[in-house]
């Protein structure tokens, strides 16, 4: 176990608090470790929260309530009904609105003394360095590997600390990364999983309240770093299991062979993160070329099948829970995993072609690669999956 680290406060105290602020923050001011000086540090702090989603919602609200003087919000997305199960900074009337703007309005209500800077754009290689430069600390609550590696690399290159949190179903992880004083994200996870191996929350789901468990840990660590109290989660990985209700702390070493913060770095500037992480595997992308049909095509193929003019088997490769929400009629369920393990190939008829679909077309492309490799040359998959079917063909079904 590496020795516990203690770091100086990240931020100098603001000259004074107003009378209104003293009243508002009194429960902080009477904690000796925070006190007037700590609260003035918070007031002088500039924190950027990446993503106003599951983790960003509680993080932004608590950072605002705590009196962080300037909060940046970066999110390009709009509020969707399926967000509201966990993204508590948004409400029913915000559906369709920019998440960053919606979050700004909620923060104004939570604490009008906070200056909110809205970055209504997608974080990318062109804007990340400029945006990060204005902040003392970054809180990472994004939902994909590409952005997480981008955030890490930009933070390392700029020498910025950041608080990282990540969630899936009932599992949460959190840590503090700061290459100047300890490990970075690449020291913990040198490479992203290949596309398709680790489902996203959109594919696998997430317990709503898990966002609060991990988002609150992130704010806890942010406040400690900003004010210089306690022992930060630097060099430690917090692992939370909501089903067992267990928090464990594991050690994270600084990797001397780390690609960006090691002794001989190979990453010295921002790289192409979409290529590094991949949206679909090379095999899946190749299999899908000239073997992707639209939901409109599928609709006419199904009509032709009904009239006996065409024969094919339509296979839903999602999980049973997803099929309870919606489905394309006339399909049978064989989850993707059964194709990857090979056991499902025997269930495919050899005398007719197969059409695969999933939620959005990623998993079905992976299945396509497997079945084409097994000799089913005329198999195709449905671009956009059941989501496109619901939005374009059958809007009466719910989407997710």
């Amino acid at each position, binding site marked *: *176990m590496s020795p516990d680290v203690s770091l100086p406060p990240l931020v100098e105290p603001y000259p004074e608090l107003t009378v209104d602020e003293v009243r508002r923050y009194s429960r902080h001011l009477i904690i000796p470790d925070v006190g007037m000086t700590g609260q003035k540090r918070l007031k002088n702090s500039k924190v950027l929260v990446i*993503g106003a*989603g*599951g*983790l*960003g919602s509680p993080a932004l609200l608590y950072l605002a309530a705590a009196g962080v003087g300037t909060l940046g919000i970066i999110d390009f997305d709009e509020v969707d009904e399926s967000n509201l199960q966990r993204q508590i900074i948004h409400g029913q009337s915000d559906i369709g609105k920019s998440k960053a703007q919606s979050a700004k309005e909620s923060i104004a209500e939570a604490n009008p003394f906070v200056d909110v800077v809205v970055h209504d754009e997608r974080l990318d290689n062109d804007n990340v360095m400029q945006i990060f430069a204005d902040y003392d600390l970054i809180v*990472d*609550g*994004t*939902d*994909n*590997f590409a952005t*997480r590696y981008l955030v890490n690399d930009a933070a390392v290159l700029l020498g910025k600390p950041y608080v990282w*949190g*990540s*969630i*899936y*179903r*009932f*599992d949460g*992880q959190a840590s503090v990364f700061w290459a100047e004083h300890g490990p970075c994200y690449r020291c*913990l*996870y*040198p*490479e*992203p*999983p290949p596309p398709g*191996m*680790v*489902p*996203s*929350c959109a594919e*696998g789901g*997430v317990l709503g309240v898990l966002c609060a468990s991990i988002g609150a840990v992130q704010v806890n660590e942010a406040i400690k770093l900003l004010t210089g109290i306690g022992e930060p989660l630097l060099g430690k*990985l917090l*692992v939370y*299991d909501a*089903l*067992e209700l267990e928090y*464990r*702390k*594991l*050690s*994270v*070493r600084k*990797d001397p062979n780390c690609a960006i913060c090691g002794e001989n770095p190979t990453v010295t500037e921002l790289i192409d993160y979409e290529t590094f992480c991949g949206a679909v595997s090379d095999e899946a992308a190749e299999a899908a070329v000239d073997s992707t049909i639209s939901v409109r095509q599928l609709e006419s193929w199904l009509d032709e099948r009904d009239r006996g003019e065409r024969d094919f088997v339509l296979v839903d490769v999602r999980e049973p829970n997803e099929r309870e929400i919606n489905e394309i009629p006339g399909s049978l369920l064989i989850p993707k*995993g059964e194709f990857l*393990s090979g056991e499902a190939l025997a269930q495919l008829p050899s005398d007719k072609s197969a059409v695969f679909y999933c939620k959005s077309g990623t998993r079905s492309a992976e299945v396509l690669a497997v079945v084409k490799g097994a000799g089913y040359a005329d198999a195709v998959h449905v671009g956009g999956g059941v989501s496109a079917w619901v939005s374009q063909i059958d809007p009466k079904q719910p989407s997710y």
Partner: protein
Amino acid sequence: MSVSVRVPTILRTYTKGESEVSVDGATLSEVLDSLDASFPGIKGRIVDEQGELRRFVNVYVGSEDVRFAEGLGTATADGAQISVIPAVAGG
């Protein structure tokens, strides 16, 4: 040598939903073989085709990452707790 292995949500499809399983083995390599014998396929999610630990899955014996110990050769004392922690990106 009996050790307990904490199974992350993402791999519980292999263990019929069990979050913690007991297996035998004096090294991590033996533990993973024994795990795979009970729950076929799970080892392939932790170790790649070349037999190396996958770079996006961390395995801890106690609170130490085996990448900074002896890797798959790391000793697993009787009663050791082994944690498999995969990278997840949800937020």
